[in-house]
């Protein structure tokens, strides 16, 4: 009996181990979507059964049907609120990107600027935004602008700190190489520091996206209270005062949905920017 006969090869050139791996990969790909979907369906079902069988009053816990109803019936109210919260979040994030990157570049270009201002960036970050919000409400006339500032304060620090680290993390030998070739400050920033900082910046962006939403929600809670009803979070708070728990849950679901969408967009941007070269975006063989 020859060795060739012993080896259990079924498809040309693909051994048993490879076949098993291909099968496992296929199952993983399907399970990645079906399992969480199944968990969601089962949870909603359990929620529904708990509410109907236990006869829980809707002002304690509304059932999924009631929440879905609120989503549809209150859509005219929820949709504009969501637009305001989205605008708040996106504007805050954009300002955080601009502010964070500009400050990070300033800090890495000038040691003096960093020494002078970095401690204050930290102070701004560690002071709870919920404690600053009432002050902003007093000094800033527009509720929207006050809320925007709140969300910006929360979102900008991770971008600043990550980008600063990234700009400083360029390979030392490459820096020497740039020195030998007589690179200008601008060339160094553009061709060396900026690409080195990109993965760090994108990491900061992912965090900042979530934080901008949190900042917007906190700001609406505090600032929207003064009767200047802002976005989804204000709607949620108001619904809780009125014991309209169906609407409260509907608003909550929309807020989480926004968070998920923001995270997905940031992940996509990061993937597209790094896929060709960065370690974090590489698929390794056999995994």
């Amino acid at each position, binding site marked *: 009996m020859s060795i060739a006969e012993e080896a259990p090869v079924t498809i040309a050139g693909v051994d048993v181990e490879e076949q098993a791996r291909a099968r496992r990969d296929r199952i993983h790909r399907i399970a990645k979507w079906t399992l969480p979907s199944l968990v969601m369906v089962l949870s909603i079902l359990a929620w529904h059964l708990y509410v109907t069988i236990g006869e829980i009053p809707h002002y304690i816990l509304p059932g999924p049907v009631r929440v879905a109803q609120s989503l549809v019936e209150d859509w005219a109210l929820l949709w504009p609120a969501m637009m305001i919260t989205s605008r708040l979040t996106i504007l805050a994030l954009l300002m955080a990107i601009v502010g964070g990157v500009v400050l990070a570049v300033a800090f890495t270009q000038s040691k003096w600027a960093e020494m002078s201002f970095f401690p204050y960036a930290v102070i701004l970050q560690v002071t709870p935004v919920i404690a600053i919000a009432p002050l902003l409400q007093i000094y800033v006339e527009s509720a929207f602008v006050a809320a925007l500032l709140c969300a910006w304060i929360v979102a900008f620090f991770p971008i600043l700190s990550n980008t600063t680290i990234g700009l400083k993390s360029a390979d030392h030998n490459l820096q020497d190489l740039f020195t030998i070739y007589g690179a200008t400050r601008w060339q160094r920033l553009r061709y060396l520091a900026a690409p080195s900082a990109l993965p760090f910046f994108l990491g900061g962006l992912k965090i900042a996206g979530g934080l901008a939403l949190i900042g917007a929600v906190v700001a609406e809670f505090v600032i929207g209270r003064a009767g200047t009803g802002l976005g989804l979070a204000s709607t949620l708070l108001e619904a809780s005062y009125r014991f309209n728990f169906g609407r409260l849950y509907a608003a909550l679901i929309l807020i989480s949905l926004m968070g998920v969408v923001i995270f997905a967009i940031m992940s996509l941007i990061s993937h597209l920017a790094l896929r060709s*070269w960065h370690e974090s975006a590489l698929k390794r063989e056999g995994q």
Partner: protein
Amino acid sequence: MPPQDLPLGQRPRLLDVSHVEKTFNGDVVALKDLSLEVNEGDFISLLGPSGCGKSTALRLISGLMHPTSGRINWSGGQGADDLGIVFQEPTLMPWATVAENVWLPFRLRGQSYVSVRDEILEALKLVGLDKFQNAYPRELSGGMKMRVAIARAMVTHPRLILMDEPFAALDEITRFKLNNDLLELKAKIGCTVIFVTHSVFESVFLSDRIIVMAARPGRVIRELHVDAPYPRHEDFRTSAEYAAFTRQASEALHDAMGEAA
């Protein structure tokens, strides 16, 4: 006749290093009284144990560091594109393709890719990587990355190429291959090389002059001339001549270590 084909004593002077010393923190003498005449076409190895100041010497010559005392003079003055350098690591930009990495020295002079594309392809062809111009560094093996680094160092045809233990991290088979290729390259483009290494075998195979150095303080112990003609091929490695030169260099290195101990 290109300077590298002239005998050692007749080549025009490129660089004079005279009585250069480097002291760190006021009391650590990294390099003591280094004098070195570098001639056009030379292949000089700085050979010695760790801490003998060979890398410091290279950094001083490259201008990345300035001597505490002594002078480094380029004959005819130093121009912006007189120098190429290869580090122990390939030191490529991971976000740029192979061709873009080789473009770097031109790019920093403000030259567009299109205007120097021929030079870039020529350099890549010389190191045997013209088919990989659009690959990213992560797709290449260690030896191939080092070839890209060499292509980048020589693409501007600098008068002097400095190499700081470029092959130390590679396996022996790859190292031998790159040694052979490096000599071939040097013969083709006719540059001058100063090569830092701690390998006796590598230094003998490559250089026509070996500067043996000792540590604490870093200083020159002896200069050896390897009077074997170029081109040197794989058969040089097994020749009696080669064995004799490696014995000389090993003994010199042994003395260097002995004095340090």
